[in-house]
């Protein structure tokens, strides 16, 4: 790969080549794999297919996790939307429903695409598939959006982290949200500069988010955090499309995320010893799940 070690470099290369960020990432990956662009595209299409199935199954099936902690909320939400019981926020309802569906499928040992992780797997499909439907964006463009998301994720992984155990949930759901926002902006015709601004704004909004899963399982709060990651991505994408900029440059936001992650105590990094996991209810659920008296 050409050296893409910052979002700015990525946006600059795209601008110079008069291409989208997704084109840059696709071409570089094909070169590295010694494959044709078509072959690499095909692999990403396979990912999109799994994302679609996860949404469908999450909504249709009677989903329940192994621990019994989660499942069934995507369906509940869908029924509430159909019955007109929610605020009626259109695209917002759609991303919440899809994020719940995919995250619940993950918790129930269904098939998902880690994006960037399994815990945060609902955010990118929720945003991309909702735009595809509501904005009638072509499948090809959505697949390219996934390359944009991947490119952003690569930079974050390189300069900070995409693992909850290393950087807290800001690194998982925060990164996924930034990646989804970036994809959304490109899919809706925004410039590479706008794409990275969306990424910076989305990431900023979720800085400091800790990883505190109840009983150490990828369910509570993970599943609902997928919805906030998706909703936040829409907000950030909209702001970027309106020309709003991140005052702190996106690459510096990533640096901030890294330093916050380093400062975060171990009990708030996937060890299930702090935060929500350590609440009276969190502890009680843990005991019930593992049969400890």
């Amino acid at each position, binding site marked *: *790969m050409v050296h893409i070690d910052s979002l700015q470099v990525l946006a600059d290369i795209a601008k110079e080549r008069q291409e989208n960020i997704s084109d840059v*990432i696709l071409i570089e*990956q094909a070169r*590295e*794999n010694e494959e044709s662009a078509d072959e*690499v595209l*095909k*692999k*990403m*299409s*396979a*990912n999109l*297919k*799994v994302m679609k199935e996860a949404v469908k199954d999450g909504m249709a099936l009677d989903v329940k*996790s*192994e*621990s019994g*902690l989660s499942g069934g909320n995507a369906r509940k939400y869908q029924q509430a939307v159909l019955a007109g019981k929610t605020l009626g926020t259109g695209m917002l309802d759609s991303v919440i429903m899809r994020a719940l569906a995919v995250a619940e*499928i*993950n*918790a*129930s*040992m*269904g*098939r*998902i*695409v*880690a*994006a*960037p*992780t*399994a*815990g945060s*797997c609902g955010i*990118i499909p929720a945003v991309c598939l909702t735009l595809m439907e509501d904005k009638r964006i072509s499948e090809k463009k959505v697949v390219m959006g*996934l*390359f944009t*998301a*991947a*490119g952003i*994720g*690569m930079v974050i*992984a*390189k300069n900070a982290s*995409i*693992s909850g*155990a290393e950087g807290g949930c800001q690194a998982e759901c925060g990164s996924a949200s930034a*990646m989804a926002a970036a994809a959304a902006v490109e899919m809706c015709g925004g410039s590479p500069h706008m794409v990275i601004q969306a990424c910076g704004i989305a990431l900023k909004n979720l800085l400091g988010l800790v990883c505190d899963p109840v*009983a*150490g*399982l*990828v*369910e509570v709060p993970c599943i609902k955090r997928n919805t906030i990651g998706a909703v936040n991505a829409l907000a950030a994408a909209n702001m970027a499309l309106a020309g709003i900029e991140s005052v702190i440059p996106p690459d510096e936001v990533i640096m901030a995320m890294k330093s916050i992650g380093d400062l975060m105590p171990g009990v708030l990094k996937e060890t299930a010893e702090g935060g929500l996991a350590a609440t009276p209810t969190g502890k009680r659920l843990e005991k019930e*799940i*593992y049969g400890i008296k």
Partner: protein
Amino acid sequence: MNVFDIIGPIMVGPSSSHTAGAARIGKVARKLLGDELQEVRIQFHGSFAHTYKGHGTDRAIVGGLLGFEPDDLRIKTSLEIAAGLGLAIVFEKVQLREAHPNTVVIKMRGGSGKALSVIGSSIGGGNIVIKQIDDLKVEIYGEYYTLAVVHQDTPGMVAKVTGLLAKNSINIARMNLYRSRRGGEALMIIELDQRVPSRAIKSIANLECVISVRHLEPTKRLGGE
């Protein structure tokens, strides 16, 4: 880095380390046994011991032992499938010394009586490392085509085996040699860029002093087919 490491892999949930990685460890262990599996004792250490039920780590390891890929939906019902096949499984918790928190010991017995013990760790993002085979400390990552050659520790074995690989135009990515004592049994782990054709495997197995040869497919696939 690979974009399909970021958007991917395709896997059965809920956790890349506790589910997908666990399935890969099971798959490699079974391949190393190279026999019909009859009995298995699965010992969980650390975080695996604490959360294996909720993460389906037990189902994932057994799925892997049955040859399922990390994205195979049958992982969810692997315990039932294994029971149907008459496979005897025991799960236990252990405390190992100085082991990665996500570590499992898999003690297998095959149909022909062969026993093999494998220790593997799931080191994050679905990546794994096999740390020990019986008494030998090893390092196998399962990302390449891998040959595991057990042989008598005599001079010239490496040259003979690599010579046969070269003759078949197979490129070596990484190679390591392990032995418990001088002149005893030794293990050659060779990671390769290409699949090894079965006739090459046969000619390695036919070499004097070679005890067994196992060929492992990479257990990590990035990007769908």
